[in-house]
Each structure stands twice: as structure tokens, then as C-alpha cells.
């Protein structure tokens, strides 16, 4: 049994497409077998809602009278990068506010804009002959600006290590609050609902793939930063963090239900981004991975008490164990916490299913596939001669 994306889109158009969430096909394949399930289902929807630090937004504010070439740009006292053309800026999610509040930053500005709230823009410049104005202070909303789009260089990690802490003191990390003596462990993938775990070799996801992004229709724009493929596999799926994607989407069409600013105490700010990817069931091979359950998806456990980029995993676990609430590490029981919301991940997969069924969302054939092989490079301290070719 084989299908193409065009055939699936034709069925969506006729209202005949059968769409199921990645959770639902786990049970279907168990019940009916791979062959029958592949014949029955056209599209499998996935979802994730987790902290994605490498996120941010490009905004074009429009020109003032007289015009200004903004060099220093602040949004609600959070610095945005203005080293672009006159009224373009990029606000990064993790940028912290300058007004002394560690728990407010770029992610909050992004969330407030999407929620329709006004945001204070302050900008300054040295003034030029063509852009004489030297400063401006005003309020913007998503309706007053020309463009505002999220452009996130690294989202949707394909798997991620579980974090624990063998040390004596509580650690405050981007993986949340880690209690001493391995009293807890935190994880962040939506497991059996996670987009890139369900199409592990990215057979159906590439540049140009249309996705659900923050409530809007967005697109995969590039390989994500730190994309890598050379990781251990279990059941043909990476059992450690591997591929990532850069994504883009119009903030004006997004909803605050699917974008949430986060503050990790004593670490910093992040943005929870809701993403869903519809996977076309091209053949049995793709249905096999779509139907992998939490028991069959594995992640390494890493001890954050060791502060090195080379920390070795202390053991492996699977998402069923993580989701059970307790993880046994070296014979001791640790309570588990998810940093990403499984509730929201499921909500996204269901919403995407509804949109495909109701012909609001069509699948897309990518224009370029993602790299088949990629290793990650470290940053070492070199002299100029050492790196010069």
C-alpha cells in the first residue's frame, strides 16, 4: 500500500481523508495490525508544547514622521536587535528586560503581542540625512506593525535527555528545578505524540513543510541549529537528542493558547511553543514509526550535577516509565516531571486533526529534504593559526 501527498490532498478536498492522532494510531496498529492500519489511515497528526529557547520574532514597525533608522530598540524595556534595515528588529525569546525584572523578557513581549496587548516601543538612533529622527517612544500592537513573524532557529527537538541531579544542592536549570540526591527527574519530549519521533528519518518533513505553529499555519524553513543524526537508535528512532527544525510563521494568526512565556528560576526566560505536524501515511514503513508507543521510545538520563558538555548518560529510560510518575535511577526512585505539556500536545494533535478533516489544512510536499547525515561540532578555544586553512 502506497500513497502520495497529492492523493491525500485530493481525499482531504473530497472530505474522504481519514485522519488520526499519533496516540490513536498506537492503539489502532495494536488492534488491526500494521497492514490494515496503513490501508485505513491517510494522515497522522502529532503535537508538542515545550520550552523552545531558540525562538524569536522579526518585526517591521513602519516608518515614523520624520523617519528614524532605529539602532537601539526596546520593547517593554526588553532589548531587540536593530542591526537590520531602519525599522526592522528581531526580538529573541530569552532576552531579559533592562528594568531589573529577571522574570520578564522577550518571550513575554511575544506572548503579549500575540494576546493582542499593546507593547511600548522605544528606539534611538544617531540620525542621518535620510533618517533625521533620533528617538521615538510609542505603543505598538500586532495590528499597527507591518510584519511580525516568529522565526525560530531551533525548535521541535527530536528527543531530549532526561535531567536529574546527584548533587547536594538544588539546581535551577533550563530543565527546571532539580532537587538534590536525584529526588526528581525532568523530561521534555511529548514522546508518542512528538512530531520528529514519529517520522524519525524525516521522510515527509523538509523545507517548506506546512505545520501548525502557535495556532497558525507556519512552515519548516531550514534545518534547525545543532541538527544532528549520529545518535544511537532504538526501534529505528533516535534515543537521544538529534534533529531539530527552524520554523517560521505569522504571529498575527497565532493564539496565546499555543504560545506561552516561561521563566526558569535562576536560569532565565524561554518560550513554550505549540507545534503540530501532519504526517502523510505514504506506506507501512512510515505507519510503523507513527505507531510507536511511549514504551518503544527511549531517552538517556543525564546528571546535571556534572557541569560539562561531555557528561555521559547514566542510564536509558522510555517515555512510558517517565510518564508513570516515577523513574528508578540506580535503584532509587525519583519522581518525574514533564516540562512540556502532554495535555497541550494532545490538544494540538486533535486540533490539527480537526483542521485537516474540515479542509482547513492541506498537507505539503517539501521542496528540499533535510540532511541525511550531520554531526555536531563543539566550540573549542583555538588560535587564529589553528583554524586558518
Amino acid at each position, binding site marked *: 500500500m502506497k500513497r502520495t501527498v497529492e492523493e491525500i490532498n485530493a481525499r482531504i478536498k473530497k472530505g474522504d481523508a481519514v485522519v488520526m492522532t499519533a496516540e490513536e494510531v498506537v492503539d489502532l496498529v495494536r488492534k488491526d495490525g500494521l497492514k490494515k492500519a496503513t490501508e485505513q489511515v491517510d494522515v497522522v497528526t502529532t503535537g508538542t508544547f515545550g520550552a523552545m529557547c531558540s525562538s524569536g520574532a522579526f518585526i517591521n514597525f513602519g516608518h515614523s514622521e520624520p523617519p528614524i533608522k532605529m539602532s537601539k530598540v526596546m520593547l517593554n524595556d526588553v532589548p531587540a536587535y536593530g542591526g537590520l534595515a531602519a525599522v526592522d528588529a528581531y526580538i529573541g525569546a530569552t532576552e531579559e528586560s533592562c528594568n531589573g525584572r529577571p522574570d520578564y523578557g522577550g518571550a513575554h513581549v511575544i506572548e503579549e503581542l500575540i494576546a493582542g496587548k499593546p507593547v511600548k516601543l522605544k528606539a534611538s538612533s544617531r540620525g542621518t540625512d535620510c533618517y533625521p529622527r533620533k528617538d521615538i517612544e510609542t505603543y505598538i500592537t500586532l495590528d499597527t506593525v507591518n510584519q511580525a513573524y516568529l522565526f525560530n532557529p531551533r525548535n521541535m527537538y527530536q528527543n531530549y535527555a532526561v535531567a536529574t541531579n546527584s548533587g547536594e544542592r538544588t539546581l535551577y536549570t533550563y530543565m527546571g528545578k532539580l*532537587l538534590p540526591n536525584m529526588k526528581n527527574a*525532568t523530561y521534555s519530549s511529548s514522546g508518542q505524540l512528538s512530531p520528529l519521533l514519529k517520522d524519525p528519518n524525516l521522510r515527509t518533513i523538509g523545507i517548506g513543510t506546512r505545520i501548525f505553529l502557535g495556532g497558525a499555519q507556519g512552515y519548516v524553513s531550514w534545518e534547525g541549529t545543532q541538527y544532528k543524526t549520529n545518535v544511537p537508535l532504538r526501534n529505528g528512532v533516535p534515543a537521544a537528542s538529534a534533529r531539530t527544525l527552524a520554523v517560521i510563521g505569522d504571529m498575527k494568526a497565532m493564539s496565546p493558547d499555543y504560545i506561552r512565556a516561561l521563566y526558569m528560576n535562576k536560569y532565565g526566560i524561554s518560550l513554550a511553543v505549540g507545534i503540530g505536524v501532519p504526517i502523510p501515511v505514504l506506506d507501512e514503513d512510515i505507519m510503523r514509526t507513527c505507531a510507536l508507543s511511549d514504551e518503544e521510545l527511549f531517552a538517556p538520563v543525564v546528571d546535571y550535577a556534572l557541569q560539562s558538555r561531555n557528561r555521559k548518560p547514566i542510564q536509558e529510560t522510555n517515555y512510558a516509565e517517565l510518564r508513570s510518575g516515577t523513574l528508578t535511577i540506580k535503584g532509587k526512585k525519583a519522581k518525574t516531571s514533564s516540562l512540556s505539556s502532554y495535555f497541550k500536545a494532545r490538544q494540538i494533535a486533535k486540533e490539527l486533526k480537526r483542521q485537516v478533516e474540515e479542509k482547513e489544512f492541506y498537507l505539503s510536499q517539501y521542496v528540499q529534504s533535510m540532511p541525511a547525515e550531520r554531526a555536531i561540532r563543539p566550540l573549542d578555544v583555538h588560535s587564529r593559526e589553528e583554524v586558518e586553512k
Partner: protein
Amino acid sequence: MSSNRYLLFFSPDLINEPITYRMVKDFDLMINILRAEIDDTGGRLMISFQGSPQQIKSALKYLTDNKVEIKELNEYVHKDADRCTDCGMCVSVCPVGAFVIDKETWKVGFINDKCIACGMCIDACPPGAMKLGQ
């Protein structure tokens, strides 16, 4: 007169000490036991003291001298349902299991009655949904 709430942790060898009796007799405090749990890892007592600041201070010193771990409790906490994303980060940091995940819906519920107001969840909740006060 002031009234403060504390969480006391005892090691198993202290369980037989008549601590509450001494609080009343030696330090003339009014005490109210809000919660008590004892198992083979030791005991946990959530307690409120009423007395003069000086009496409370002496009582706390007596407790620390006897190797009882003390944690002063914050005000009550509440969950802002609009900010909560049902992630579950709070679940593993709460010492008394006041957060419960419904395995059908995967929503995270907060059981107010279980909460001992230790404050552990407040700085652990990423979107800032756990707040002090009723």
C-alpha cells in the same frame, strides 16, 4: 503574640522525643498540629506556634539544637488556571503530592487541602501559574 507556621523534619531517632510537650511546657507556646506524618525515614510535622516572638525564638533554638530541621512556611498558594499549561513540572517538586495528573485528560490538578504552603512549587512553575495568597 504572633503565630507562625513551620514544617519540622525529624530523623527516625528523634521520633520518641516528647517535642510537642516541651513546646507547651518549657516555652509556654500554644501549638496546633496541622499535619503529621511518620514513617521509617523519620517524621514530618506541620505545626503552628502561638506565643511571644521571644518564646518562639527560644523554641526554635531548642528544636535546631535537637537536630530537627525547620522550614518556615509561606502563605497559602493558589494555581492560576489561565497561566497553567498542565506541564507537570510542579508534580515532582511538591513534597506532599498536592499536584495530581489525571491520566485520562493529562490535566494537572491542585489539591488545596494537601498543600502545606512550603513554597517549593512557586519558583518551579515555568509559566508562573503558582502564586502566593488565596
